[in-house]
């Protein structure tokens, strides 16, 4: 037990300040995020991640957002286990045809207004896979999309930017 405590103490806090992106728009959003989440989402923004056909690279970076360096939960943003608890769907991958109905149903199970983030190049425009007999391509070909986060995969900082941007959109929605 002592060794665990010592290790925890030696590790200290790794969490980094919210991304300072020298982008006045995002900086303003960054300062506002907690207020926004408090005001619009009663203190918590619940995200349901849906892999609709990704290569799993996108998932690795979404995991990282929940890790100690980024720790997105401190902004009141957390990932939930069911679409029924979600304010936002974070969708990755081109939508494979075999996932098309599952994605639609997940979307239908999300309370309205449910917001959708298309995360990663595949989700934004089909990426390397495009549209084919097996792939519907971009998420917007299947369900409406509010925000797109490009990148293959988007880095944790880009993901945080995208989620901040969504909260900005949601304010006016």
């Amino acid at each position, binding site marked *: 037990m002592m060794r*665990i405590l010592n*290790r925890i103490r030696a590790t200290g806090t790794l969490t980094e300040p919210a991304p300072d992106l020298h982008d006045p728009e995002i900086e303003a959003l960054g300062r506002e995020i907690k207020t926004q989440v408090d005001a619009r989402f009663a203190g918590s923004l619940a995200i349901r991640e849906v892999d609709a056909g990704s290569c*799993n*690279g996108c998932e690795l970076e979404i995991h990282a957002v929940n890790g100690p360096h980024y720790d997105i939960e401190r902004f009141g943003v957390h990932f939930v286990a069911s*679409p029924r608890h979600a304010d936002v769907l974070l969708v990755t991958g081109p939508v494979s*045809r075999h*996932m*098309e109905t599952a994605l639609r149903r997940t979307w239908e199970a999300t309370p309205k207004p449910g917001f959708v983030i298309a995360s990663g190049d595949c989700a934004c425009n089909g990426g390397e896979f495009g549209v*084919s*007999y097996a792939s519907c391509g971009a998420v917007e070909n299947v369900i409406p999309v509010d925000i797109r986060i490009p990148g293959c995969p988007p880095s944790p900082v880009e993901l945080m930017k995208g989620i901040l941007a969504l909260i900005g959109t949601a304010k006016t929605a």
Partner: protein
Amino acid sequence: MSRFDWLSEFLAELEEEHVVVHSGSARALAPAHLLRIDPEDWGKAAAVARNMDLRWAGIWGDEQDNDIVLSALLVNQGDYVVLRTAVLSDNPEIASHTPLYPGANRPERHLHDMLGVRFTDHPDARRWTRHRAWSEDQHPLHHDFPVAGNPPEHTPADADYPFAPIQGSGVYEIPVGPVHAGIIEPGHFRFQAAGEPILRLEERLGYVHKGIEKIAVGRDAEGLARLAGRISGDSTVAHTWATCQAVERACGMRPPERASIIRGLLCERERVANHLGDIGAICNDVGFAFPQMQCQALREQWQRHSAELTGHRLMMDVVIPGGVMINLDETAITGLRDAHVRLRDQARELFDILDDQPSLEDRLLTAGYLSPDTAKALGASGYVGKASGQAIDLRADGLYAPYSRLQFNTALSENGDVAARMGIRQEEVFSSLNLMDEMLDMLEQQSDRIDIFAELPDAPCGEGLGLIDGWRGEIVSYVRLDEEGRVARFFARDPSWFTWPALERIVLGNIVPDFPVCNKSVNGSYSGHDL
């Protein structure tokens, strides 16, 4: 037994069974030995292989003119043989290998769905990769099947898939997925349980089928490498490497030595990153969050370093046909050496704590047992195989540079439980660090001005086989290029093909709430399997 000995024994046994080998070639698909046989002998040849204890490692088909050319990959301790035959496209029927090799079950069903090959005596006639995006009489890998297909406007759920039924008092079913509760890939699990213990698990995969084999056709080598890097994002280096190796062999060229060393280094980096992530996640799945946070922190530092070196946190698109995109200079090498020292210390301290936690032991020891016999029957490679006594490691076989110049011992255990699979991963973190240090030595012995890339010949043509040990295990990549150097056929076999069926056995008798930790200890790739 030397390669020559066992191969001549194999040929003698085939002759004994009246299997005619029409031609053999040591070069056409090197390092594998290619043997052409008659379609009627397909089953008999597999029986001979089975008797000689060869491992079955995959099957693919390739429509050429009026034929479908079939290739099955067999292995004897690091020596590969490709059995090849041809059947007529309008009546493609052949003996199944599944009765002899249970690991062949899903690969053969995949081949049936994709190319219409009927396997006689296959014990399971159900579709596998096909859901409802194309019909039973269509086969996407036929040349006359358009890339766009003709899918229904909305592809319905594959609701009528006939799962094996179970009956009995108090027996119930739990359907899970395709959308899971965590941040993970989609797939369906059908549990049948009585009380808490699992009586049976049936997996239904194919949800993330993206048509990779089809959309590869017509690409140039660079485009193929990009696609291969997205077969399974967590194995992007290993898959791209396997595919580039296949392309390079098809062209009869080799990348410069420095490129091979850098590839090896990146591939070990990928292994370390994934093992760290999974060790943490396994602990988290039994409610121990401390290692999860520690491992995530180590992994994040590691990935940032990867981004510094390669411009990409997962090192995507760094391996390219003919070489690599980045060189490592003296500063980079020193930085890597320091990072290796740091990680070795940090991992040692953390793993010592884990080894000393009775509560962790209580949950992981004996949980999720896979017997060496089952692992062998399925042909499971990687940490799943190694934790159940299967010493399958292409690096140790010295099949490719830079490993052909490195000494390496495979981590091995017979215990077969979750603890053993985690233990193998812990050992591999350290052995990878040692290998990487040796690779840095090799780099330092060269001038960093030396080439890291060689042009492919103008119109490469031919076929090649890539064989790479990724962090999950053995990756096989097959490429055939046409006269213009474009892809005519591409097939990639992720190790997950054989560890997914292992998971169905692993969970038996375990309680349903232990499924996540059993699953995580295997961590099959959905995307790598579904293609």
